[in-house]
């Protein structure tokens, strides 16, 4: 053993810094949100395109009717936020892969962040401030509950 290099004692257990690495959380998020998105997208497509009259049912009244219901508001909000963060996180990885020049990478990363925030805010505004019965419209185009107002 003489002359062998001095080695520091090996680490014993998982350390705090090991658990907290952002790369790992990003990886886990991609998988968890992916699984949730399968369910959300399946329900979304079934309700809109398969149940009832299928694709023929989609008009202003159908969309307005759904967005007047808090369940669908929160359902769509979850789908919007998860899909946007999932998609943006995926695009972030792709930028890291392909953009080698630092300023190009920084520009793309900021463009991605800004567009993600803008789309999430716009989408949320639409979901929660949507007026299903705009005044002065042809009643035949509006959802049935508008007559009561």
């Amino acid at each position, binding site marked *: *053993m003489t002359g062998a290099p001095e*080695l520091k*004692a*090996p*680490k*014993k*257990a*998982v*350390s705090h*810094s*090991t*658990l907290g*690495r952002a*790369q*790992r959380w*990003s*990886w*886990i998020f991609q998988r968890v949100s992916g699984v949730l998105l399968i369910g959300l997208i399946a329900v979304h497509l079934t309700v809109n395109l398969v149940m009832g009259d299928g694709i023929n049912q989609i008009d202003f009244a159908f969309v307005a009717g759904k967005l007047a219901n808090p369940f669908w508001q929160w359902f769509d909000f979850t789908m919007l936020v998860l899909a946007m963060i999932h998609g943006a996180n995926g695009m972030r*990885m792709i930028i*890291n*892969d*392909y953009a*080698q020049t630092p300023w190009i990478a920084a520009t793309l990363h900021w463009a991605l962040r800004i567009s993600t925030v803008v789309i999430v805010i716009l989408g949320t505004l639409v979901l929660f401030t949507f007026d299903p019965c705009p005044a002065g419209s042809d009643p035949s185009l509006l959802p049935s509950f508008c007559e009561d107002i």
Partner: protein
Amino acid sequence: MTAPADAPVTTDAIPTMTVTLKILRFDPDGLDGREPGTEYWEEFQIEAHATDRVLDALHMIKWEQDGTLAFRRSCAHGVCGSDAMRINARNRLACKTLLKDLNPAKPIMVEPIKGLPVEKDLIVDMEPFFASYREIMPFLMTSGPTPERERLQSPEDRERYDDTTKCILCAACTTSCPVFWTDGQYFGPQAIVGAHRFIFDSRDEGEWDRLEILNDKAGVWKCRTAFNCTEACPRGIEVTKAISEVKHALNTGEI
């Protein structure tokens, strides 16, 4: 009765065929009036048996047609890992690839492995690849006094990392990985295979040192489960599975 020693050897009975090889060459010196650093495809035709390997074909070219063709090989039997190259767009060992398995009716395309700097023809600079391997500390790490005898291990404990002991460091996996091609920093699959061999060895105590390194920016989380590495490995190592086991250990804290 034994056959007389001077009986004619009848290899003529085995039919030969004409095989075309298209080799991607790189000339760093600029011979024959080329610009230094020229990259070009060159075609060669050889007479070979179906059971000859791509390495035999390269030998025929180098020994009989063009001595300037440069490629690495040592053992010629799939042991040393010197001759990984991109043959018909897949990473393989030239010494383990039979011509008959490659559709010899068409030209066989031979290129250097991708993602490492080419030095000459099929020879690449392996140093970035070995540097990643060194970084995961591929040696036994223990504490306490050195035992008098060998460190014992149950067959079950040995079985856990059996697959990753087979690695011959040929770089076929790492240079088939799309993340390694584009991302200049990723360790690549081989370094994770090399780390797996020690992380899951019950006699080794450096597992968290290695896991910490692989948890880093350029570590296992860069892997996108493309499975190219598993398909490329000439030793049949389930590379993607080994990478997933490392991810699992990092996610659960258990080895």
